[in-house]
């Protein structure tokens, strides 16, 4: 049970470059949130503040009742697991299973629990068949799943996925979708950065939109993808279904393929 609170958080790099301005955001236990926005909007900075990789220059980040300023990244990462955007920044073992096993082992869990978590995470990420492979022999998209499994195996309450959809094919997207369901059942909070708006509408109701280092909107998908002002400000492209619905002059609010098909069929009296 860990809530996450960012209160008026700003971050500047030592050279003065501002990366995030005045972000206030709360994420409840077990909640699933998508963060979207242009490259350079501050998304990755925001999530790195959540797991203590970065400490705020102003404001406070509370993980449960911990102020991240008072704890080391190693301590915070027991509660908030972060999967790096680039898998190659994260992987350092010669085979997949050792990579996944490292986290739970390092947490000091009992050997049985380490085993259990390692296998659970590898299965969930669809990489069990590669257990003995060197991660660098695997395609980028599969390496990404190796890094996701490594973080899931640490069993933290909050999990952050930084662009898990990048380079994923249809099968990869299905694995991700399933993984989100399983994590929800386990009451994990999951924060996902993605550029894939179809993935967002398929699996997320709460969407946080960022632009120019600031929060632009924090709302449900219908409100965001049919809000011209938010879309323009954040330079977001609505999902294909919303664009098709608009071209067909349908009333606003349609986001999923199923909804669109239903409206088309009903108009044809089917």
């Amino acid at each position: 049970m860990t809530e996450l609170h960012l209160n008026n958080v700003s971050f500047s790099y030592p050279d003065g470059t501002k990366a995030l301005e005045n972000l206030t955001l709360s994420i409840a236990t077990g909640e699933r949130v998508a963060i979207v926005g242009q490259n350079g909007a501050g998304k990755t900075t925001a999530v790195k503040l959540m797991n203590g990789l970065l400490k705020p220059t102003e404001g406070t980040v509370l993980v449960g009742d911990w102020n991240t300023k008072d704890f080391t990244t190693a301590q915070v990462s027991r509660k908030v697991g972060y999967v790096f955007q680039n898998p190659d920044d994260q992987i350092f073992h010669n085979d997949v299973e050792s990579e996944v096993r490292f986290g739970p082992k390092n947490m000091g869990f009992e050997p049985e629990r380490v085993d259990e978590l390692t296998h659970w995470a590898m299965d969930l990420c669809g990489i069990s068949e590669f257990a003995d492979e060197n991660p660098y022999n695997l395609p980028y998209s599969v390496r990404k799943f190796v890094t996701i499994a490594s973080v899931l195996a640490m069993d933290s309450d909050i999990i952050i996925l930084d662009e898990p959809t990048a380079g994923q094919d249809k099968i990869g997207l299905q694995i991700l979708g399933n993984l989100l369901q399983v994590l929800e059942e386990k009451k994990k909070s999951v924060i996902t950065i993605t550029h894939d708006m179809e993935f967002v509408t398929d699996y997320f109701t709460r969407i946080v939109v960022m632009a120019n280092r600031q929060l632009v909107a924090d709302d449900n998908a219908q409100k965001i993808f049919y809000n011209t002002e938010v879309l323009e400000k954040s330079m977001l492209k609505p999902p294909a279904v919303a664009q098709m619905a608009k071209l067909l002059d349908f009333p606003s609010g349609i986001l999923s393929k199923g909804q669109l098909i239903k409206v088309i069929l009903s108009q044809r009296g089917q």
Partner: protein
Amino acid sequence: MTIMIDLKNVSYRYPVSDDFVLKNISFSIEKGKFSAIVGNNGSGKTTLCNTIRGFVPHFYKGDLDGEVIIDQTKMADYQLGQLGEKVGYVFQNPFIQVSGVKDNVFEEVAYGLENLGVPVEEIKIRVEEVLKLVKIEHLRDKNPFELSGGQRQRVALASIIVMDPEILVIDEPTSQLDPIGTEQIFDIIRLMKERGKTIILVEHKMDLIAEYADDLLVMHEGELVMQGPVREVFADPEFEKYQIQYPHVTEIALQLQKLGTALSFIPIRDEELAKALNRTGVAIHD
């Protein structure tokens, strides 16, 4: 038409591997065509790219059967350096393409031309032009290692375009980019096509392939299972069995068809749906 890329019964397996990752692949690509290679991960797309740019067999050893002919010359008769001028390759992962020997973006983009011995004045002109084209002028003094994934992806593309190769092989150039940045990259690729370049693109974003590419090559477990004009391949019922993403509008159209809705054709672009449904776009509101 001139054939730019010609593969005849090409099979390949990596060293110490038992399995062939490319199995008996044959196709020809005409000069100036924009072809997209699609297929699920592990289907052999990147290996196929590596074959076209000569890394198989010049750099990766292993067993290569069949014939690869680039611009009328057999692959075996090229030096790897010559191929570098003929075939530009943009890496899938922009994090590994960056050379690591240059400390700002301008010099990074100039690096390839320096190695080709291009005069300094000409390098400056060409780099300026490309920085503008790819919209990264503002990054010129930044260290390539301090850039975000999306920015690096643009630098990677710029570093190749600047060398002006006849063939561009681009492996998932937009995986780290936001939707607007993705469209900008596709616009640059289109510009390259207008300049007569032959383009091979690996990409998972089918909506963009439907909008920009001429032809589609479908890979499945190391085999080239389908090829032809983009529209024909997506409309072919066989495509469905390879479990590859469709353009979103095509997926919707096919579902409607299964539910008994008559379509005048299979749409592959969003704006075609109304026409396929024989609607004129007249507003129907409750």
